[in-house]
């Protein structure tokens, strides 16, 4: 009678373990992860039923026949379900509703089922095989090996294997939000994640066929690189509009380790703007709205009486960045000017008759 009860119990247990695979309405799984602590501990067994579930229920969802997760439902959005382990800091990725295979209906704590199972197995061996009074037979050896094979197989099948290799590994990173140029400074703005720039090891920029080393300063999220005015002037004369900046930076990571950032070419574009020429009577104001000086050649033609030959004078100069130049021809009755300047490698001319 006891033997029959033992076989019945073992069969029921096996059926419940295999229930997950053969589609039974109820089945049991063994928990291996502490993600549901304190509700469920590793080693606990959970009895699940294939019934409807709601937010707050503990469910099992499987991404494949072998890989399953037992977590709590925190959100249901139509056909997708979001679950989270009680002890996990973040929720899992949304899963389709059909991936949920069952709802937890009972937890069998490990402190209850392991001693019970051990006692039952010991008792069974004692009564049926007679392990307390060893009999010398190959059959006994075979029986022990087979018993081990069966129990081990059931045990291994009951463990829902997890395919999550590493969880909680936040690899520090630094992304680029954008690069822009303002006045004579190039700004590279970063989006750091558990990392910040500790120091700049190298900084260089290329424009046209020139390569130069840059000096840069940085705060936690942005690097600012000063471009000398001469560079803008050369770029304008040569008709170059692009500056490529490359940096190598030492990053300090969360936890104190270091990493290195070798940047791509951060390209910024800059073209000179037209000078502003304002004429007021016979006073001419030329403003340079650029970060580098503007090469101009000003030719003035003046005369005091009609019929007199023009008095022509010419001067070449470089108007300072953001600066201006004033030409006062108010001492003459007749005056005109010709302003020649270089813009993006091409010579342009502005002519004005001053009245």
């Amino acid at each position, binding site marked *: 009678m006891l033997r029959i009860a033992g076989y019945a119990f073992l069969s029921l247990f096996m059926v419940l373990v295999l229930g997950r695979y053969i589609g039974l309405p109820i089945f049991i799984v063994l928990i291996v992860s502490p993600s549901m602590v304190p509700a469920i501990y590793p*080693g606990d067994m959970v009895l699940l039923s294939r019934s409807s579930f709601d937010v707050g229920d503990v469910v099992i969802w499987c991404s494949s026949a072998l890989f399953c997760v037992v977590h709590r439902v925190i959100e249901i959005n139509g056909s997708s379900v979001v679950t989270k382990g009680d002890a996990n800091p973040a929720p899992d990725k949304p899963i389709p509703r059909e991936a949920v295979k069952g709802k937890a209906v009972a937890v069998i704590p490990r402190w209850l089922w392991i001693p019970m199972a051990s006692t039952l197995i010991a008792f069974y061996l004692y009564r049926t095989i007679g392990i307390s009074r060893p009999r010398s037979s*190959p059959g006994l050896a075979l029986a022990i090996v087979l018993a*081990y094979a069966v129990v081990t197989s059931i045990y291994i099948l009951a463990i829902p294997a*997890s395919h999550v290799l*590493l969880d909680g*590994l936040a690899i520090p990173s630094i*992304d680029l939000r954008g690069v822009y140029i303002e006045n004579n400074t190039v700004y590279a703005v970063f989006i750091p994640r558990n990392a910040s720039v500790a120091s700049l090891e190298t900084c260089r920029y290329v424009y046209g066929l020139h390569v130069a080393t840059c000096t840069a300063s940085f705060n936690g999220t942005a690097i600012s690189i000063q471009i000398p005015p001469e560079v803008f002037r050369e770029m304008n004369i040569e008709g170059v509009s692009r500056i490529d900046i490359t940096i190598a930076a030492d990053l300090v990571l969360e936890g104190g*380790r270091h990493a290195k950032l070798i*940047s791509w070419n951060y390209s910024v574009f800059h073209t000179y703007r037209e000078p502003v020429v304002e004429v007021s009577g016979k006073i001419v104001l030329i403003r340079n709205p650029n970060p580098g000086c503007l090469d101009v050649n000003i030719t003035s033609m003046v005369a005091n009486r009609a019929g007199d030959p023009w008095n022509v004078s010419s001067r070449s100069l470089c108007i300072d960045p953001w600066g201006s130049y004033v030409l006062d021809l108010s001492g003459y009755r007749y005056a005109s000017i010709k302003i020649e300047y270089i813009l993006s490698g091409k010579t342009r001319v502005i002519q004005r008759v001053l009245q």
Partner: protein
Amino acid sequence: MNLARVLEVIAASTLIIYAISALITLLTPIYIFRGDIDGYLSLSGYSLFGFGSEIRSQMAESAMLYTAPIYASALFALASSLLSILRGSPWLLLSASGIAVMSTGILRGVLYILGLVASAVSKDPSHQTAAGRIIFQGTEVYIGTGYIASQIALVTPYVSLALAVIITFFALKKQMHGV
């Protein structure tokens, strides 16, 4: 002391070596990590810290649960071997050796799982973003005592099983001939 008894003692000793090496495999670190990720992986626990936070591995936790049959096998092998040396019990030795051989399959499996986790831990996290290439210092992996012990635990059961089969053959022959 006849040949069968000598072989039995050798087989039992081999099985004891298996049991001890299996327990060392289960209880001591298999992989030790130094670098971006610090810590260890063993079949009885793990500790991984990287970039200021604790890292968990559900796969390693599964592997730990799979080791229960190996514990059982090692303890059974130890008890059977001692009994066999003291009292002589070739059948018990045969069953313990058979179980030990079976448990090497599980041991290979859990070592493979830990190997996967170790590969993931030591994987170079260097990556590219819009900012550029981020190069990390990396994580160095060292083999722990458990890994060395596992190589012994994976071999010895086959030796003891082979000897146990011979001993069983002698015992059966003895029974059949009534010698």
